[in-house]
């Protein structure tokens, strides 16, 4: 403890210089925390927006279903997987897909029919809440359809309208059914906007004569576990012909965007840490240069080079603890403010913002968590101590005689 006290006194020998360094490191730490929290918020929001509507943390498909969306490539034992998910506390929604034609009046268009279990969709996902008009499917099959916004527009279909579905059924026959438009979705990504015609699973079965085939089971754990854990939990129930994949595998573009953001952040952080490190190194160099004679005397009376190295690094560490504590207080306060009062990006543009199929939230909210605070603080400690090693080594290796004669 004594050496901490000595370090404390030493760093205030030149109070002004130390204060300047402390302020610089404090601000650097605060800026890093705010930046990390904002980027974390942005990334989380992006992933959340991309996954919360329909994708989820992970999905199960027949192994080549995603390459060839054939109605015959269905999952072998959907019930087993659903049970495994339920046991693990993971929300799951089974879905069937097939292509067909829809027409309303004189207008017709190609559509991807989704056979969903409305009750499961409502608990596992949030698409059902994103209604532009009307409402989502009722839990019981009732000949209702929910349309993507652009599809509805091209059909000139409004809530309450009747549409005709004409499809090729699984048995080769022609399926033909009348549906009532119960709701139209908000913009939710190109694929859904242009193509989705969402109907009850039972209606899907009778339209496509598909015999209960399930093509996709979407799993959502709502941050209770990582996507990888979700996959691990259901994997035992997934037969060999099927695969469980995380959103990262399902949306590699988004995953690499998130990774790129992390990389950009790492570079940004590196530059900041470098600047802070050089500042601390400069301060410690000046501070040790002024004390050369002192180190000479200490070495002469028997202090080991290690002792001197340790004492100087301790000074840098104490300085970094003061600075990072202040920086953490300021940074966390600012980040919490931005968590409660998100930046409104809609002032920069109008309407919905979407990018490569992902809809962005116009409110940019910071997310403060352990990582966004602890990482910059601890890395700053390490940087400060590393930065002090150069001056500390110089002092530790001084020749005592020359140091004592130094004025």
């Amino acid at each position, binding site marked *: 403890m*004594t050496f901490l006290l*000595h370090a404390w*006194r*030493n760093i205030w*020998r030149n109070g002004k210089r130390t204060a300047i360094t402390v302020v610089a490191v404090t601000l650097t730490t605060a800026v890093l925390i705010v930046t990390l929290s904002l980027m974390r918020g942005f990334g989380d929001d992006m992933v959340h927006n991309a996954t919360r509507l329909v994708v989820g943390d992970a999905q199960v498909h027949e192994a080549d279903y995603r390459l060839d969306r054939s109605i015959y490539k269905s999952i072998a034992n959907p019930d087993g997987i659903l049970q495994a998910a339920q046991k693990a506390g993971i929300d799951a929604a089974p879905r069937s897909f097939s292509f067909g034609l829809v027409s309303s009046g004189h207008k017709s268009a190609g559509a991807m029919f989704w056979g969903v279990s409305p009750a499961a969709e409502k608990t596992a996902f949030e698409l059902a809440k994103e209604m532009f008009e009307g409402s989502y499917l009722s839990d019981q099959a009732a000949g209702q359809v929910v349309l993507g916004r652009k599809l509805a527009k091209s059909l000139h279909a409004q809530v309450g309208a009747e549409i005709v579905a004409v499809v090729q059924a699984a048995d080769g026959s022609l399926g033909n059914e009348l549906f009532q438009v119960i709701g139209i979705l908000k913009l939710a990504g190109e694929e859904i906007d242009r193509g989705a015609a969402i109907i009850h699973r039972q209606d899907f079965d009778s339209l496509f004569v598909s015999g209960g085939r399930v093509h996709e089971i979407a799993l959502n754990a709502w941050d209770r576990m990582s996507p990888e854990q979700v996959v691990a939990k259901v994997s035992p129930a997934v037969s060999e012909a099927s695969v469980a994949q995380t959103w990262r595998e399902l949306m590699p573009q988004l995953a690499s965007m998130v990774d790129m953001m992390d990389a950009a952040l790492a570079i940004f952080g590196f530059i900041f840490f470098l600047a802070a490190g050089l500042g601390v190194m400069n301060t410690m160099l000046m501070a040790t240069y002024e004390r050369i*004679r*002192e180190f000479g*005397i*200490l*070495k*002469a*009376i*028997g*202090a*080991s080079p290690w*002792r001197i190295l340790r004492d100087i690094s301790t000074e840098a560490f104490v300085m970094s603890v003061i600075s990072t504590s202040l920086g953490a207080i300021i940074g966390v306060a600012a980040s919490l403010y931005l968590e409660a009062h998100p930046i409104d990006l809609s002032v920069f543009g109008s309407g919905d913002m979407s990018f490569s199929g992902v809809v962005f939230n116009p409110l940019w909210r910071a997310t403060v968590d352990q990582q966004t605070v602890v990482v910059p603080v601890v890395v700053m400690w390490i940087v400060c101590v590393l930065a002090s090693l150069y001056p500390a080594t110089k002092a530790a290796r001084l020749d*005592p*005689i020359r140091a*004592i004669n130094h004025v």
Partner: protein
Amino acid sequence: MKTIVKMENVSKDYGQGDVVVHALRGVNLEIAKGDFAALAGPSGSGKTTLLNMISGLDKPSAGKVWVDEAEVTAMGRTAKSRLRLNRIGFVFQAYNLIPVLTAYENAEYVLMLQGVAAKERKQKVMDLLKQVGLAGMEKRFPRELSGGQQQRVAIARAIAAEPALVLADEPTANVDSATAAALLDLMVQLNEERQATFLFSTHDQNVMDRSRRLILFKDGRIDQNGTPAELQANK
């Protein structure tokens, strides 16, 4: 009587080629345990160099040095550092003290380096500061002490760990003569009461006269060596 310092044919040359300075030229010297010896000579005669050979802070160009029967000239860096920590106390001419440490902490420093327990340190250092006349000034920082008081702290630090030998390089050169006399009184007292061996350099006649053994140094050689009375008689 036991020998604490022994030097055999010690030479030290500084520089190389045409500009070699022969700081020491074949010095043979023995200092007995418990002695109070003054190394006297004009500036540049090699006093500091000689002290540095003994403490192992510098290496002789030739010759051997022993301290307390251990050969300093055969030691590695770590062993020398340990020798200085455990067997030798130092007093320098001036600015001996660490400015951020109080008188107490400065005096305590060597004991702390040695790993002596805090309680034992406290007892020793408080006793010692009282003995060097600084009772009540323990909490003062060096800048709050006079030059003479600072040297007293330095002396306390040098003998705190009860070293076999105290080396003092012109300890009174930076203080007035009254203070010098008082510091000398203190060193004599510590030499007698604590059986601390002192070897100090000086070019102050008053200090030389107070020594029990006087080594007169000239051009890197011992010119005369004896008690002040003997040297006086030889004149």
